[in-house]
């Protein structure tokens, strides 16, 4: 077993593209759940709309990078509006069921063969990043960054992805400390109290849902841009559950939490994957096959989620008083 390689791969995950994508989705979810108390279980749907919005705009409409980016964000915002109008008046667990149902409906639609000429059906879409990678200022070549060696495109997507994470995180810091953010926290703590102060709770919740959804759509775009492939099977509820795990790991009502949570989560997954695969390869775990190692990763996600929510619902950075899971 090559511990050096496992170690390097694990460290590489800390700045990985998927890590950044999940961090973005989890930041959106922090807006929804951490700051507003909305139980959104359809983050995969928002991310999918970002990804499909971008790739369809590029491939079908022939739009450029900025147009496609905007279209992806608009799709997510529209989804948030459509979803929010009937559900934001409902109790939290209804919202959870409806959001997960809506996200799953999107998955059925995207993977359906009827719309394959636009969405690519179950094969999805690919090669939509020409414009994005064309904008890459880094000269062609392989760059040794100490622990990992990356191509110019791999560095470019990482710079953009983490740049987005930083911009969104800073935006959220400003927003959550503003009067608007304090109202949201008030809604999370006691909706009726905020309503009695004359605030339009529904409008605030809707703004939060749209904003968090648009942030999630950015995560979706980053996710598919890494390899320029957008497959519908990415956007199943497991994506949402992993985002929740990332969020709860770091702390739901924090900004740094989702970012660090994502890095720690993916480093942990890579580490367990590397070690388990190494053990299987040297024959130390005769009852497991390499494919099953991948399955155990997901099993660990479930265990992680349970243990976190039971024993440390506030995550790494959260404040227990702020993390009550009302209800």
């Amino acid at each position, binding site marked *: 077993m090559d511990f050096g390689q496992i170690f390097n791969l694990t460290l590489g995950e800390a700045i990985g593209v998927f890590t950044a994508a999940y961090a973005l989705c989890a930041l959106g979810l922090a807006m929804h759940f951490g700051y507003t108390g909305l139980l959104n279980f359809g983050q995969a749907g928002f991310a999918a709309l970002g990804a499909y919005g971008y790739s369809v705009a590029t491939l079908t409409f022939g739009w450029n990078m900025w147009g496609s980016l905007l279209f992806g964000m608009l799709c997510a915002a529209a989804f948030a509006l459509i979803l929010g109008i009937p559900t934001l008046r409902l109790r939290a667990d209804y919202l959870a069921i409806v959001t997960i149902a809506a996200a*799953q409906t999107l998955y059925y639609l995207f993977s359906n063969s009827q719309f394959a000429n636009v969405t690519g059906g179950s094969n999805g879409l690919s090669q939509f990043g020409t414009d994005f990678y064309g904008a890459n200022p880094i000269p062609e070549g392989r760059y040794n960054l100490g622990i990992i060696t990356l191509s110019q495109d791999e560095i470019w997507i990482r710079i953009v992805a983490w740049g987005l994470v930083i911009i969104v995180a800073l935006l959220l810091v400003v927003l959550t400390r503003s009067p608007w953010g304090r109202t949201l926290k008030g809604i999370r703590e006691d909706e009726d109290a905020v309503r009695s102060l004359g605030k339009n709770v529904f409008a605030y919740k809707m703004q939060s849902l749209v904003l968090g959804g648009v942030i999630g759509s950015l995560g979706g775009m980053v996710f598919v841009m890494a390899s320029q492939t957008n497959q519908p099977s990415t956007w199943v509820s497991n994506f949402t559950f992993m985002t929740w795990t990332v969020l709860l790991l770091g702390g739901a009502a924090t900004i740094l939490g989702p970012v660090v949570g994502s890095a720690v989560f993916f480093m942990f997954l890579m580490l367990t994957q590397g070690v388990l695969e190494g053990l299987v390869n040297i024959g130390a775990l*005769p009852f497991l096959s390499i494919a099953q190692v991948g399955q155990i990763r997901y099993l660990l996600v479930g265990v992680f989620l349970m243990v976190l929510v039971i024993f440390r*619902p506030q995550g790494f950075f959260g404040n227990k008083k702020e993390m009550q899971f009302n209800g």
Partner: protein
Amino acid sequence: MTFAKPFLMAISKGMLLKVNKQETATLPMLAASPDTEVGLSHPYARLTRGWAAAIAAIGLAFAVLLGAAPQAHAADNSDQSTWQYSIAGTLKQNGKPIKGVDITAVDGSFSNKATSDDFGSWTIPVPKPGIYNVTLDTKTLPAGFKVDNANLQADLSQVSFAAVLFRFAGQTVQTESFSDQLTQRIFAGLNFGLLLAMAAIGISLIFGTTGLSNFAHGEMVTLGALMTWLFHVVAGMNMIVAGVLAVIVVAGFGWLQDAALWRPLRKRRTGLNQMMIVSIGFSIVARYVLLLLFNGDTKDIAGGGNAIDIGPIKTSDVTLIGMVISVITLAGVALFLTRTRVGKATRAVSDNPALASATGIDVERIIRIVWIAAATVTGVAGVLYGLEFQANWLTGFDILLMLFAAVTLGGLGTALGATVGALIIGMVVEVSTLFIPNELKYAAALVILIVILIARPQGVLGKKQRLG
């Protein structure tokens, strides 16, 4: 029986033996954590006794698995036996198998070929995980056959078996009149609705008494179906005995879940939303444990049964018996809730736990009974679902959202509402296939759910107070 029945090959591979150890390693680790929390303040003896029984039950399940494993192992003796992965399917047009067709699986530089046999079946063993492009050689197709799409994909990145279905022209052509089709769909919808109703009542009972929206409920359906497969197909038991045993296993699982996980969480006064997320985590764990134990392939249990035609309705003896059992089970639940002392106590707890407790009802005992009862009806649903359709590790998870849709439609927490909701959802799912593509039928049900929630947020039979 026209309910999207995929012509899959049920391949039983010798994975059971290999993964047993994994199960032993994961389950106690998972369940032990809440236990330590409760032990400090509450009846230790009771818990310990519970645990001893639980361990004995798990041990028994393993004994069965171990006993069954060599039989399953014998089935796996293909030439490339060192290759653990395979892609397979069956070529059929209008029920007639197509033989002698070449199919190739390609991933990068690797490629392997197979030819369909007399039954139209083909299997391609492959050496490693990956996403394979599977191509049907149209030149080898006999005259008169036309494949819709000769290039498909098999995703073996997570599982070790994938079924690939080539669809042939003419397969979906309907010659029946619209009214016949409608009758047929309504019948299928009724059947699916009855199956959903049993599992939905399970969710509803648990929600009513504990307030938990249990996302791990689908796994009880899966467990029921896969256990029937294990007892009937692998261990070779009589179908009825296998079904009854499977229901008992699921009931035991329900009791175990409550004793090891939910009861300790209630004792900790864990919030309901928090418990809901725990149930999501638990559902992931349970699903992947089932995947490790049973593999990812789809298992055919009853082989479709014997065909029976009633007027325009094409069905099978298995389906008809299944419907009768569903109706009896649902009636049983209704009688239990309205006529028995425990049933009345259950409804009292659903209505107001504090008041029920004050009138001398042992709320914890009722909740324990509810968990076992809910698991039992859900287990019956799982067994019947597995017998009428097929089962794999995702069976329950696939219909979980339908169950929630049913429960939400009817109004969260009422058993009658869940039944009505399930019948509506079952009908919508089946009848919608007359107008929209088959793959979108679940989407139709979810859209209906969202639409009804706009018009009547408390559900068809729900009370206004359930709104937030």
